[in-house]
């Protein structure tokens, strides 16, 4: 990991955000294992460097579009983890009053256009937010996060084509974790790098190590700057990996088909652990890192308690919010 150009405060900030994501989802997983969580959740563990690196390149008023695997994007964007956790448990004090769950968390005050349960569903929505920014001349940008699977949906191609044709301020971040549930991207797509598709739309496409938060951040900053300056969209493909299966409860055994050590090899490159090692080696003592972690841990435990203590919504809530006034 090349830390050149970054100061300690920045590294601490990256680490805090990634550690918060990781601990948040470990608690989500616990809720699932204890049978306290309705339905399922798609965990982002392993991919933290992508959301942390990209979101650090954004301004407060920028937009992001997220996916079914969205907890990381939301935490990186500064969403309220109490309201997130309550929503994941289907509680009244959740972001959507328990109507959306893990896949539909939205927080417009943080520019979060929503997680989305349809693969590729949010790509045109984020592109539309970029259209608004261009139309109103606000200098905002939009980021669309999605996986390798979504890059084979029609909305991916349609959206990037329009964004390119009209120079919209949007960055398309492909989180290539190699699998769409069990299907290996290498078995269904005949390009080595999904970012190569950028050539077909006349825009830049870059491949980056998605396990290195600083590498992601450097590329995101370039793409954001280009978008803000009217240079149009960029595709950033982050090579990454999910620690868990498609969702909680999926052991993900299909990943041993090509290489039985595949998961272990990726986990050895843990983005959270690696940044911790760098900080310990060059900047901080173990005690100082532990103190940072303790602060995050307190937030996480508060969120867990908040979610457990929140009541379930009254059944009348099912009938509201279909329309607004």
């Amino acid at each position: 990991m090349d830390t050149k150009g970054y100061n300690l405060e920045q590294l601490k900030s990256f680490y805090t955000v990634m550690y918060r994501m990781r601990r948040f989802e470990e608690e989500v997983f616990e809720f699932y294992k204890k049978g306290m969580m309705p339905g399922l959740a798609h965990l982002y563990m392993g991919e933290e460097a992508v959301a942390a690196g990209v979101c650090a390149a954004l301004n407060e008023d920028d937009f992001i579009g997220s996916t079914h695997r969205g907890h990381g994007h939301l935490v990186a964007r500064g969403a309220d983890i109490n309201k997130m956790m309550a929503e994941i448990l289907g509680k009244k004090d959740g972001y959507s009053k328990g109507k959306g769950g893990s896949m539909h968390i939205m927080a417009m005050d943080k520019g979060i256009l929503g997680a989305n349960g349809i693969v590729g569903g949010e790509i045109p929505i984020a592109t539309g937010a970029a259209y608004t920014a261009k139309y109103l001349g606000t200098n905002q940008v939009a980021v669309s996060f999605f996986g390798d699977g979504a890059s084979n949906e029609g909305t991916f191609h349609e959206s990037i084509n329009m964004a390119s044709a009209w120079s919209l301020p949007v960055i398309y971040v492909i989180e290539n974790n190699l699998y769409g549930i069990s299907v290996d991207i290498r078995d269904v797509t005949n390009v080595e790098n999904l970012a190569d598709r950028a050539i077909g739309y006349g825009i830049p496409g870059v491949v980056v190590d998605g396990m290195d938060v600083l590498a992601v951040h450097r590329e995101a900053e370039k793409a954001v700057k280009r978008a803000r300056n009217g240079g149009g969209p960029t595709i950033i493909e982050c090579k990454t990996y999910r620690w868990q299966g498609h969702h909680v409860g999926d052991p993900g055994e299909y990943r041993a088909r090509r290489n039985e050590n595949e998961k272990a090899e990726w986990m050895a490159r843990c983005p959270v652990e690696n940044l911790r090692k760098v900080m310990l080696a060059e900047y901080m003592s173990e005690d100082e890192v532990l103190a940072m972690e303790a602060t995050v841990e307190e937030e996480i435990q508060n969120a867990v308690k908040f979610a457990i203590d929140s009541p379930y919504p009254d059944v009348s809530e099912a009938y509201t919010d279909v329309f607004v006034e």
Partner: protein
Amino acid sequence: MREILYRDAIREALDEEMERDDRVVLLGEDIGWLGGNFKTTAGLYEKYGDLRVKDTPISEAGFVGMGTGMALTGLRPVIELMFSDFLLVAADQVINNAAKITYMSGGQVSVPMVIRTPIGGGRSSAAQHSQSMQAMVSHFPGMKVVVPSTAQEAKGLLKTAIRDNNPVLFFEHKMEYTNKFLIDDEIELIPFGKANIVREGTDITIVATSSQVMKSMDAAKKLEAEGISAEVIDLRTIIPLDRDSIIESVKKTGRLLIVDEAYEFCGIGAEICANVMDDVFYYLEAPIARIGTPNVPIPFSPALEFPIIPSVQKIYDKVKALVEQR
């Protein structure tokens, strides 16, 4: 009162709302330089420019989804889909996204977006350019569904649609675009959820949508000559549904016929029949009836197409049978 083409009434509504509110932005195929496939946006590109009257690529899911993103972030997009059949190309963005985002967010956000699109047979456009999609979209929660009849109705309801804070599906009948109507400029906005009794009668209630309102009126005139008095209700909006006006009318007439051009099976007629049954059952003098398009794909040849879509004659025949049934 002045005379106006239906398509020009649509254009006036768009123009007036764009003048009034610069957040109103149009997107669609061929709406710019060409002025729309049915000429409903003629002159707007020249007046408002490329960024507000945006010609899109043939990417229905893409540009409808963009509309949702624009609506979430402060604009009021009005999207034209060249034929309502193309709603199916964009169905995920319409039904799974635009219609549900308000609910999924727990009411945090709204999607003030209008999708305008033509419906109906009559042009030998065959199975993929002649369908009427109002029944299909009405099955899903989260969208308002508008089925205007005349030019006056189209203009007033479109202006209301653009000011509504929810996704609105606005169905224009393609056979009306070049028809002339009288329009009263004193009427500006026509509210949703308030059906219009366009003709009072005592023997039967005909609830109709879109072009079927005009066909029902023609049938009612013929029936009057035979001593049958038909009340004709222009439904205006399917969602919200003005069930009270229908119930009140049927209590008076004792008979109900629903006419909508979408496929009859699982259609608007079936829904209204079941929806009002509890309230009107003991007032009925004949079974509730419906006319729609039978469940076959719309055929190409006029020899096949015209006999299957609803017509003045079919309405006339059905009413006669219901009234004369004792």
